[in-house]
């Protein structure tokens, strides 16, 4: 099998009339893990949501190619079926739908009619992944994210990642709200996905997560585009020194896009 690729080309995204992402370019190959870091409000979640197809975010220019195919023409569910996954910063709660029913439904839509996973196989897989993530078995029968603590929701996002086995995952602040032990568990979950068939984009504020998941590349986002890229050591420097040195280096006054335009 050819190595999968996710290629973002000259992407521009607007939210309610304001351009947040501007000429964003990035290529991730199967087997690679990229990290995106950047100050609050610089467009990280906007990028993630736009790639997944959130209706509030309008792509005005550019392409997102998954194995050469532009996914921007696809509906949200089709993007998922094509192999994309978004671990959300704020996962929704769905009352009355159990975690397990939801996951089975998601797996079966992906597999298609006539090729459904057998109940036994599904249960075994779910048990195994939940154990790996040190989740209490009762979470299978809980309603989807309803009443979950912040950390439990994040763990549940990773459970979905492990169950759905996408080609590419974008994980938006998967580490926020996690205690130290949970951080390790979640990181191990992501690491267990590492293989040439899987690529990952991790959005985070903290170097801490990257101690457990070593990224191949680290990118800094400001003003809606990548302003600096480097290896794992870049994240360490950001952790120690913050973003000011980059701003100085590049002559950026305001890292947020909207505000800067207002000044202009």
């Amino acid at each position, binding site marked *: 099998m050819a190595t999968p690729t996710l290629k973002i080309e000259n992407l521009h995204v607007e939210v309610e009339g304001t351009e947040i992402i501007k000429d964003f370019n990035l290529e991730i190959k199967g087997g690679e893990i990229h990290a995106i870091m950047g100050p609050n409000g610089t467009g990280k979640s906007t990028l993630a949501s736009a790639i997944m197809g959130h209706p509030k975010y309008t792509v005005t220019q550019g392409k997102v190619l998954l194995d050469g195919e532009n996914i921007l023409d696809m509906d949200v569910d089709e*993007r998922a*079926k094509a192999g994309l996954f978004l671990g959300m910063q704020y996962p*929704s709660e769905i009352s*009355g739908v159990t975690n397990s029913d939801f996951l089975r*439904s998601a797996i079966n*839509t992906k597999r298609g009619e006539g090729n459904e996973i057998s109940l036994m196989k599904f249960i075994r897989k779910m048990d195994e992944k939940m154990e790996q993530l040190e989740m209490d078995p009762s979470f299978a029968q809980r309603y989807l994210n309803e009443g979950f603590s912040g950390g439990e929701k994040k763990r549940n996002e990773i459970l*979905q990642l492990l169950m759905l086995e996408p080609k590419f995952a974008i994980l938006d602040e998967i580490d926020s709200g996690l205690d130290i032990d949970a951080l390790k568990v979640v990181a191990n979950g992501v690491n267990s996905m590492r293989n040439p068939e899987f690529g990952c984009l991790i959005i985070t504020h903290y170097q801490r997560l990257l101690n457990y998941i070593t990224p191949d590349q680290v990118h800094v986002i400001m003003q809606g585009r990548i302003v600096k890229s480097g290896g794992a050591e870049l994240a360490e420097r950001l952790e120690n020194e913050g973003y000011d040195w980059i701003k100085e280096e590049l002559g950026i006054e305001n890292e947020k896009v909207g505000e800067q335009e207002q000044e202009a």
Partner: protein
Amino acid sequence: MMSVDTKWTFDEKYVKEYSQRRGEPEWLTEERLLAVRLAEKLELPKPEKTNIKTWNFTSFKHDVTGDYGELKREELPEEVRVLLDRASEGENILVLRDGKLVYRSISERLKEQGVLFVDIETAAKEHGDLLKQYFMSHAVDVDENKLTAHHVALMNGGVFVYVPKNVEMEEPLQTIYWQEDPEAAIFNHVTVVAEDNSQVTYLENYVSFSEQDAVANIISEVYAKPGANISYGGVDHFEKGMTTSVIRRGYAEKDATIKWALGQMNEGNTLSDNTTILKGDGANADAKAVSVGRGKQSQNFLTHIVHHGKHTDGQILTHAVMKDEASSIFNGVSKIEKGATKSNGEQTERVLMLSERARGDANPILLIDEDDVTAGHAASVGQIDPMQMFYLMSRGISEKEAERLIIHGFLAPVVDQLPLQAVRERLTEVIERKVQ
């Protein structure tokens, strides 16, 4: 379509003959005669925000005659059989067709425990004195309005459940009331009595298959004696032509609990009153109801909990889905009387609108005459949350399936609480069909 009498033609003579033909005790005949006289004078009820004046309450066939012998399980129509779980020794089932008992399956255990579970006709004949104590007593009055009077005058079906002291029934008591003759009126009366510290689960289904005009005028009275625990499940699914008035009232004494789980899926105009009176200290009520409105139907739902006793707790949850041009009013009333100290009343009413032409009104009302209490309410009317849709679809679930999951989840609080698998599945199917 043949139209039946459009005015009320039932007089004392008719009612007396009807009562005697059924071999009813004198007290019941007298109650019916009183009711006929009251019916003339009393007005229709005036539900908040719904005009029912043009609704059909008089066009129906009252006394359906025909062959109503007992049926075997396999002779029941498919639509009725799907409501039954696989036959088991512990099951307790009564099926009434047009008010007449046609099928019964009663467990040995129920008999050993001395529980009565009989159709109302038999109850009147064989347990008349017991029935008399509870028939139209603390929970519902015959002279509340024209419809309560009609009900007593023409009651033509129902069941009587009596659970002796300290008896804990594990298996649910299941009843199915099915309209076969398309014009048959369902004037059904259900009385459930649970004596001190007993426990019982009762589950009823109402079904009809014809869209012709008819009337259902139903009253359930539920009495929980001190320490008793009653779970009452109901799934109503009458077809379009049926105009329904359904009153389900509970009366809970000291430390008693009454739990309602109602799936109100009628296709025709419906007036529903679900009230629980928390009479004794420490009494509890939990009233959950879900409904789906579609087509042009108009419905009015009152969920009402009245706190008299101290330390009483009342919970109301109503979830409804509205589509097409249907119109529904949801009135939730928590009434805390003076002296009901340390009581708690909470309610949630949520309406999901699937069409712009539909109407759904959620009116949570707290009426509180005592200072030392806690109460709260939450109400919302809105569309499906686009964030939830995005979340589900981002896992590969199609738009249609995502919508389906969210709606079923929204109506799950009642579905999940019903005690029998077959009834849960059937209700899920009905919801499926209605929201499509």
